């Protein structure tokens, strides 16, 4: 046991003192924080170049509405309030000091074709020469109920800028709607009030307590139903990815640098593998401690700690241990079986798919955490830790029997994988030459 610990300690110290670990430890929080800051930074840096739009309206009915709507928008709709204007400042000064342009202006011009020129051809040329952002063609059928292929068409060579067509659609539609109500002699305000939507909110379950009182249902939030299970799974995935492939590379490197032979003259291959596994669990646990500590602190800081009860942390740690032992032994065995990085990478692909299965099925499982698909996938051997964790954190949580069945499944899978991997490791760690086929690997496992 002392030798296993000596190997684990060496692996741990070597990893923790490496630059890669220090960088890895801070990279995720930095990436997350950085992306928030970056979005905030980019949010303030919108391209404010005025967008020029030509409108061809043969009906003449919509041009005034569009022009007025654009002027109103340019005057009031594209500004962001910065601060309260001081009471002494004049109205003009206050508006200039307290607001900042956040969206680009829309500058509209009415187009009238000269002679028999085609509006779309002429205006397209102007878009190409960057004179216009785009143009809109309004078909006269818009005023009637006649079917038309393109009643309202927006032409541009920059379709990714969607704010302008959305605005046109909104303005023209509200005008058309008003006309229709007027023709039908219906008060539009009344119609809007009568057809307003009834909002629906999602709540948990109420519970009658033993003392006769009722525990009221709690309102469900996206944070609880989606964000927490998703984040927990991603954290577990990251911890597995930090150490399992690394373990494979280390074993392979020891083989390639002929260190393995020195090691197995001092320890048994099983002790070597176990020591490496314990070391990688220690590395991941250190990372987990930092991240879970961060989650604990931040959920308390923002008053949402009730969404992540303490038992969730315990389940996370348990599933993490199972996942690390399972994938660690699997990747370690694969590393020991190969003699070249290229061979290891090709053997790694199926193992990677096993890790990725839970990630691919996140949305299907969160949508129906206790459905037959989610339940069946939980008992796919190597997927159990990740999928069970996901289901555990997504309300309402799995049925009671699964709190025993899933850990039992994890335990059985881990023991089988450790046993099989140690058999592969024993033969593989001293083998040289071509990577074995899966058939040969199975042969190593069943050999005495």
């Amino acid at each position, binding site marked *: 046991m*002392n*030798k296993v610990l*000596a*190997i684990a300690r*060496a692996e741990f*110290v*070597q990893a923790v003192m*490496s630059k890669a670990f220090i960088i890895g430890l801070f990279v995720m929080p930095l990436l997350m924080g950085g992306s928030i800051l970056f979005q905030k930074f980019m949010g303030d840096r919108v391209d404010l170049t005025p967008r020029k739009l030509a409108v061809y309206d043969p009906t003449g009915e919509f041009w005034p509405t569009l022009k007025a709507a654009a002027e109103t928008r340019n005057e009031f709709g594209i500004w962001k309030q910065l601060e309260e204007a001081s009471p002494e400042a004049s109205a003009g000064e206050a508006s200039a000091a307290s607001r900042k342009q956040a969206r680009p202006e829309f500058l509209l011009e009415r187009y009238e074709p000269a002679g028999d020129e085609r509006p779309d051809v002429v205006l397209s040329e102007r878009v190409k020469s960057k004179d216009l952002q785009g143009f809109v063609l309004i078909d006269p059928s818009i005023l009637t109920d006649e079917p038309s292929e393109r009643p309202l068409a927006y032409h541009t060579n920059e379709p990714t800028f969607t704010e302008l067509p959305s605005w046109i659609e909104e303005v023209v539609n509200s005008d058309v709607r008003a006309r229709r109500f007027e023709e039908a002699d219906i008060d539009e305000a009344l119609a809007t009030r009568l057809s307003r939507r009834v909002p629906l909110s999602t709540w948990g379950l109420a519970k009658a307590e033993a003392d006769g009182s009722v525990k009221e249902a709690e309102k469900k939030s996206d944070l609880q139903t989606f964000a927490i299970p998703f984040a927990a799974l991603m954290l577990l995935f990251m911890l597995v990815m930090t150490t399992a492939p690394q373990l494979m590379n280390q074993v392979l490197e*020891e083989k390639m*640098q*002929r*260190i*393995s*032979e*020195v*090691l*197995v*003259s*001092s*320890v*048994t291959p099983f002790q070597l593998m176990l020591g490496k596994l314990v070391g990688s669990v220690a590395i991941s646990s250190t990372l987990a401690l930092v991240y879970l500590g961060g989650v604990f602190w931040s959920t308390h800081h923002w008053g949402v700690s009730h969404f992540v009860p303490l038992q969730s942390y315990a389940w996370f740690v348990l599933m993490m241990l199972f996942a690390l032992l399972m994938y660690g032994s699997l990747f370690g065995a694969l590393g020991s079986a190969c003699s070249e990085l290229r061979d290891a990478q090709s053997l790694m692909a199926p193992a990677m798919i096993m890790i990725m299965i839970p990630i691919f099925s996140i949305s299907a499982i969160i949508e129906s955490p206790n459905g037959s698909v989610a339940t069946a996938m939980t008992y796919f051997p190597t997927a159990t830790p990740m999928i069970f964790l996901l289901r555990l954190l997504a309300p309402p949580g799995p049925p009671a029997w699964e709190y025993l069945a899933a850990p039992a499944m994890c335990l059985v899978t881990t023991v089988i994988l450790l046993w099989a991997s140690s058999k592969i490791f024993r033969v593989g760690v*001293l083998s040289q030459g071509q990577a074995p086929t899966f058939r040969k690997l199975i042969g190593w496992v069943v050999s005495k």
Partner: protein
Amino acid sequence: MTRPAIQLTRVTKTFGSHTAVRDLSLEVPEGSLYGFIGPNGSGKTTTIRMILHILSPDSGEVSVLGEVGTRASNDRIGYLPEERGLYKKMKVGRLLGYYGSLKGMPLREARKEADRWLERLGLTEWKDARVEALSKGMSQKIQFISTVISKPRLIILDEPFSGLDPVNLEVLRSAILELVTDGTTVVLSTHDMAVAEQLCDHLIMIFKGDKVLDGTMNDIYGKYGQDTIRVRTEAGVRALQGIAGIEHVADMGTFQEVRFRGDSQDLLQALAARTRLTQFEETRPTLHDIFIRIAGPEAARSTGDGAEVALAAGGMTS
């Protein structure tokens, strides 16, 4: 009679259809410097791996330091494999401490012993350097320290001198002899027969998995006698062409070693008639020569040591 440090009894190991070691028996006396010699691929490393219980024999018994068929004695064995392996990114001091702790040594004691050896081999200033910063010779000395750090009773060195310059070779050689003087049993595995000849008091020669020679150096020389004549002539190996009675010639470049059937004076006269002689010495055969005699000309090609010369007359059979 003291117990042998290693005792192999009728050990056989096969890999698929290839027999790496066949029915091998040997005894390595405690405190001896014992040579395993033979060309590459002869079965030396497989034998060593069985002694270390890295590999299990298909048949036969392996007893090491009194432990039969288990790894129980492995903590008392130091092993320097032929293909060196050190963690390139690790610092020297930490690496030696780690290797010591793998032998069950307390870390503090391992580090103390590492310091002693680093000083002994003149590497103290490299203690905090990463292994990747060391020269090849220095790495090899570090590997040697990692082998002896746990004060093993038995040390197995597989080609310990390969790639070393003469200065480092001498340092390592004297360190090995010092260990033997202190009572450590040393097994030296090498294909370089000259090295084995210089250092070892006992020898076993393996060729294609078979033991072909086993005994003390005195036994071996006693058996093969002084029937070799070392000849250095201006004409070189061509001077030996067609002389009757020559059984075997090993061309060593500037001189040749000749096994001659008959009176050596006849050979001297024959050569003097052909060329100018600068050396003519009756000597005992080298290990290499003995090996060729036992294993045949094929063995000479596999050692790559010296060149076998086919002569028109006289033949070359052994």
